[in-house]
């Protein structure tokens, strides 16, 4: 009854790919393009994303006709884990590469694919996720933003909120109600649209978070026109599509590697080793991260094989997020060899920032309260 993750190993091509990404990251660092940060996948940096596009690090699994390299999900896995481990600012292409692009590849029209996919691969076209609303978070099926059919397309009205990078992105795949809500069939009548956020009627406002950064935003739709070609999949099939998208959103290494740069900064600062505290905390982090990494590889392989790892993804995310919240808390017990060194100061600043930032890890992309319900269903309890 307990959930098993089939063992999966990286293909032989992974090594060369890893070497290539490390060389790219070293060059970027030496050029002063970024400072490592935790949760680099939420840091929106168009210049860095264009550099990633030029280096061939976006859309790796996609068809060659859209600029992709037709590589496997496991090969893509190597690239994204290296970018995350380095704390690189990959937020501008993260969502497009991880879920919006794949969603459009599977369910988008030819016209939409041609419009956005080559640009994503070049690192020029960026996406945001349009799920949460002021009154709809975990209960996503209760969204009230709506689409009305008009000549040649749809008109969208409503509001999305907590949208990471929404004030900066070019497009959003949003979930809208296209039929009146029916309490008997809550998941019916929803449709996904790819919306160009530069269209007339879209108003965007960044929301400052408690760390002092404008990472997320509120987006208002006031009679925004979207052509028929920008409907994702079938009208009314939005719930099935959005839950399929969530398996991509939840199963990646960003759900446990967000705080990895903090461990690197600690090693750079140099922990005191005259008591076992540093060894035990570092070793515990290694044990948990290594096990999670095996699970994430397993999910990547399952996605490659066309499987639906929605429950595994929920499990992986809940476990990974819990660890990401624990690591900064537990590292507070570790003392440094030279507390006055610049490396120690840099580590402490990163620790302080991560403690606060970690508050969001169990909120974004599905809360433990929702994920554990999904796991319980997988166990046969619901």
């Amino acid at each position, binding site marked *: *009854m307990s959930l098993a993750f089939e063992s999966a190993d990286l293909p032989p091509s992974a090594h060369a790919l890893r070497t290539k990404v490390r060389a790219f990251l070293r060059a970027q660092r030496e050029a002063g393009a970024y400072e490592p940060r935790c949760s680099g996948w939420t840091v929106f940096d168009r210049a860095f994303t264009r550099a990633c596009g030029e280096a061939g690090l976006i859309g790796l699994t996609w068809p060659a006709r859209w600029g992709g390299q037709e590589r496997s999900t496991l090969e893509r896995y190597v690239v994204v884990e290296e970018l995350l481990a380095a704390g690189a600012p990959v937020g501008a292409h993260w969502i497009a590469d991880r879920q919006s692009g794949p969603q459009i590849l599977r369910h988008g029209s030819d016209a939409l694919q041609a419009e956005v996919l080559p640009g994503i691969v070049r690192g020029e076209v960026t996406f945001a996720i349009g799920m949460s609303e002021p009154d709809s978070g975990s209960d996503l099926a209760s969204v009230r933003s709506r689409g009305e059919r008009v000549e040649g397309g749809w008109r969208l009205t409503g509001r999305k909120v907590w949208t990471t990078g929404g004030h900066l992105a070019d497009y959003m795949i949003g979930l809208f109600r296209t039929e009146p809500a029916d309490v008997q069939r809550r998941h019916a009548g929803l449709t996904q649209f790819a919306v160009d956020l530069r269209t007339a009627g879209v108003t965007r406002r960044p929301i400052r978070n408690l760390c002092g950064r404008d990472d997320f935003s509120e987006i208002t739709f006031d009679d925004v026109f979207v052509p028929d070609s920008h409907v994702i999949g079938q009208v009314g099939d939005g719930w099935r599509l959005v839950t399929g998208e969530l398996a991509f959103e939840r199963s990646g290494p960003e759900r446990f590697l967000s705080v990895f740069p903090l461990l690197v900064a600690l090693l750079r600062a140099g922990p005191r080793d005259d008591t076992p505290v*540093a*060894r035990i905390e570092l*070793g515990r982090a290694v044990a948990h991260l*290594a096990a999670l990494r095996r699970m994430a590889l397993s999910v990547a392989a399952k996605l490659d094989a066309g499987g639906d790892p929605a429950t595994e993804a929920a499990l992986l995310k*809940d476990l990974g997020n819990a660890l990401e919240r624990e690591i900064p808390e537990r590292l507070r017990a570790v003392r440094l060899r030279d507390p006055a060194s610049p490396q120690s100061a840099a580590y402490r600043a990163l620790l302080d920032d991560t403690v606060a930032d970690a508050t969001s890890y169990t909120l974004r992309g599905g809360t433990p309260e929702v994920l554990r319900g999904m796991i319980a269903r997988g166990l046969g309890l619901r």
Partner: protein
Amino acid sequence: MSAHESMIADAVERMFAEAMPSRGVDTTLWATLVEAGVPRLLRPESQGGAGDAWRDAAGVLQAAGRHAASVPLADTLLAHALLAQAGLDADGRPIRLAVAGPDGRPDPADADALPGAHRLVLQPWGEAARCIWMESDGAPAYEFELPDAPRVRARLALAGASMLTGALRTAIDMGVEYAGLRKAFGRPIGQFQAVQHPLAVAAEDVAASRAALDWAAAGLETGGSSGEVAAAVAKARAAEAAGRVAAIVHQVHGAIGFTAEHALHRSTRLLWHWRDRWGDEHDWHALLGARALAAGPQGLFDLLDGVESR
């Protein structure tokens, strides 16, 4: 088993399933295992084993953990692997493998009587592993050293992780089953979120332990440092999970699970026992942490893949 289908593990699982719960060593079951050559599994093929068949061994010991089998199979299986390395043989009697902790605390199993058993005392925490071999018929003790202590430690870790992971799987299965049967306030308690969510957390721990174990068993068969790191990860992960999962499934079972009569404690006692044997999670965390310190900021990520690039 998941990735590796083990016919041996399946066969042994059937032997355990057919055995009756027993106080002390189940001598009938032991005789069946010996007849099938199971305790010699890790000896070379020329001695009736399958060589470094660590995936089979992990499967067999997981089965022992799942069924809380009343036989000292992990001890004997490992002892045969170590004795074979030193060119020593032993008969079919059980072997107690006594491994003190890195701080010198005795192996918790040392307090359990194992009548007629041979005894292998092992100190694996230094550069070389020191062994004392004591046969049960009173022959003089024989001391020897195995040169590659990290590999010896990895084998211990894998065996312990296998026992724990098997017991973890039974514990979560029992917790889920009981939550579906027991009714309170007019419905099965498994329908309450307050019960569902802790069981989900327990399932996460079990899944992570299984994933780490599969990785470690494959790594030990390949050889090299990646198997050593993976085995340490597997034991640390399962040992940490053991306490949490035991607490959750007992809470779900309520008072009935606290009785001597109920079968739950056969699994949870195994969890508490094996998390402490052959290095607990704190020992293995410290060993992994030492590797992390040695790897440094540049090498830390490769350590997650079991690679040590210094």
